[in-house]
């Protein structure tokens, strides 16, 4: 491939330098990865700006910029930007990123595209705790949030303990996750029938998932967690790639697989739990972000960061659709669920070799 070689041994043997070709490929992959990540970052940022500008009261870019940076003081603009729109934009950005990162870690760890946290009981655990809070104790939004966090962590611990048998295998983990989720969903349904209509409506609203509901403290917590956890996740990517080869190979290569798995699952669970606590169980972003990022990256290895950015962009876009384009303002989760369906159909229609995965 490349004519320029600087390994004399290879040259002498008269072969094209494999090492150099490998390097070139790796370099081009790295470049593509960087390019895609940067583009996704810009896209998410752009959607943030759109979220700040559009609405029932349209603002100019200059006004938004002035208000966000505290350069211009205009009480009316400041109220709209800082009190109403900025929280939504920040929340969508953080929640989307957390969902995307968490989803892709789950999927890579368990080697199954269906192993998203929405399927395997984490969201269901959060839901049952939050709905119990709303229905039984009339919990405030902060308490609901904490309950959801606890429920998600408890649900995933339960799942992990149940799925453990000389290690955790992907297939068993998913099956058990489905079982755990079903138990929780049954209890959630029962709680809904016992509630007053008012409480039930609030619970359903929570269950659909919506951004921009979390207060400042919750958002700061989520943002801080992302700042700490995302780099850790990126650093653990080497372990992820090792695990992708399968347990035995990874063990052979010296990876401490179970320890790495526990760490990564804990990371992913923490991210999804925080996101769910802040916005409710938003469907499909976690499922879709990883594979979408993978497609954009092409042969470059799937990273946590691109998936997080795809998640953020998806959620920002979905929230814009939910609040601006639809005739009635709806929870964000309605739109992500509706978007997720065509995505899966597209996945089915285009990828005919993934049929063996299961």
């Amino acid at each position, binding site marked *: 491939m490349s004519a320029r070689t600087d390994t004399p041994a290879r040259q002498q043997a008269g072969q094209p330098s494999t090492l150099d070709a490998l390097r070139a490929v790796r370099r081009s992959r790295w470049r593509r990865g960087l390019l895609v990540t940067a583009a996704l970052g810009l896209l998410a940022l752009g959607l943030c700006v759109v979220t700040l500008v559009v609405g029932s009261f349209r603002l100019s870019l200059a006004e938004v910029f002035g208000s966000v940076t505290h350069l211009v003081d205009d009480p009316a603009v400041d109220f709209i930007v800082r009190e109403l729109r900025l929280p939504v934009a920040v929340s969508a950005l953080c929640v989307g990123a957390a969902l995307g990162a968490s989803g892709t870690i789950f999927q890579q760890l368990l080697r199954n595209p*269906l192993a998203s946290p929405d399927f395997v009981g984490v969201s269901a655990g959060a839901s049952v705790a939050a709905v119990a809070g709303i229905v039984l104790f009339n919990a405030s939004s902060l308490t609901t949030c904490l309950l959801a966090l606890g429920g998600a962590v408890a649900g995933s611990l339960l799942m992990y303990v149940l799925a453990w048998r000389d290690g955790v295998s992907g297939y068993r983990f998913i099956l*058990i996750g489905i079982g*755990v989720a079903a*138990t929780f969903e049954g209890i959630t349904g029962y709680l809904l029938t016992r509630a007053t209509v008012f409480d*039930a409506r609030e619970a*359903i609203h929570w269950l659909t998932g919506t951004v921009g509901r979390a207060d400042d403290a919750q958002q700061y917590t989520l943002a801080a967690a992302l700042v700490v956890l995302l780099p850790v996740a990126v650093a653990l990517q080497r372990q992820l790639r090792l695990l992708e080869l399968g347990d035995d190979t990874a063990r052979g290569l010296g990876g401490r697989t179970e320890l790495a798995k526990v760490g990564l699952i804990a990371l992913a669970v923490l991210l999804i739990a925080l996101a769910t606590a802040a916005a409710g169980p938003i469907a*499909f972003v976690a499922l879709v972000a990883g594979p979408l990022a993978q497609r954009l990256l092409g042969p470059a290895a799937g990273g946590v960061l691109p998936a997080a950015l795809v998640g953020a962009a998806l959620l920002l876009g979905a929230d814009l659709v939910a609040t601006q384009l639809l005739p009635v303002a709806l929870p964000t989760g309605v739109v992500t669920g509706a978007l*997720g369906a065509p995505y899966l159909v597209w996945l*089915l229609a285009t990828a005919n070799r993934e049929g063996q995965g299961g």
Partner: protein
Amino acid sequence: MSTDSARRAPLLGAGLAGLLVLVVVLAFLSLTQGSRDIAFGDAMHALLTLQSGDTMDGTVTLELRVPRTILGVVVGAALGLSGAVLQGVTRNPLADPGIMGINAGAALFVVVAIAWLGITDVQGYVWFGMAGALVATVIVYTIASLGREGATPVKLALAGVAVTAGFGSVTSAVMVTRTDVLDQIRFWQVGSLAGRYEPVVLGVAPFLAVGIIAALACGRTLNGLALGEDSARGLGIDVRRARWATFAVVTLLAGASTAACGPIVFVGLVIPHLARFVCGPDYRWILPYSLALGPVVLLLADVVGRVVARPGEVQVGVLLCVLGAPAFIAVVRWGRLAEL
């Protein structure tokens, strides 16, 4: 396999007969137990004479418990069979009417019926549930058939998940905006045998009867499909047609059941595994065993649900989730599930 089956046939036959006796016993329990204690004699009197005798006990027996018990038997059989057929045709141990989008389709249509057509009682929306189940199944099957290799098990599961998500989000959009709809559907959605009067039972019974008979006739086809597509073709089975036909049977069974009782999960998933555990891989035995085990589980759960929370009751769908899921998890842990 066939000689082994032949040797075990008397034993399996006896087991089946025992199960059917158990169904009858549970049906009597279902008639006499509940939030209201009715003496066995009074219930029998009402049943034999078909007259309520102008007593509350007689009225409760005839108008509430009889339809409820019949529904429990028929729907239990239908759900058990639909799970067995679906798992056979998709060769997927996780296949379950819920996963295939049937519940989501029924729920969406019921929501639409309540929200825009002003239909408020179960008798009215049975038909919409049926139609929704049918539409969802057709969409799922069509999506899964895209591409060269046709409707493979994995593609069917993914398509089911996709349709469930799409329909589910429209359903929740309606529920969030319309409190009156939410108030009705939240009771339908947990799955229950309570409050289904004669018209509901009579409405779905013909569909279920046809479906049950058709499902019982699928044994040989499913045995063929279990060997894989190529072997099935070698046995002279038209795979494409067999898939369509069995799928139609599943829709009939699961659609009518869901329409009448709401989405009852786990019966369709777990019963075939129990049956397979007892009779091995031969679908000519799995199907009748599923037929008998379904009502056993459903009636038992329904009676327990009525007794544990007196004077109220826990819906059978909830009870099955709360008890069925741990049972399922136990089966997964023992590692007997992956074999099909």
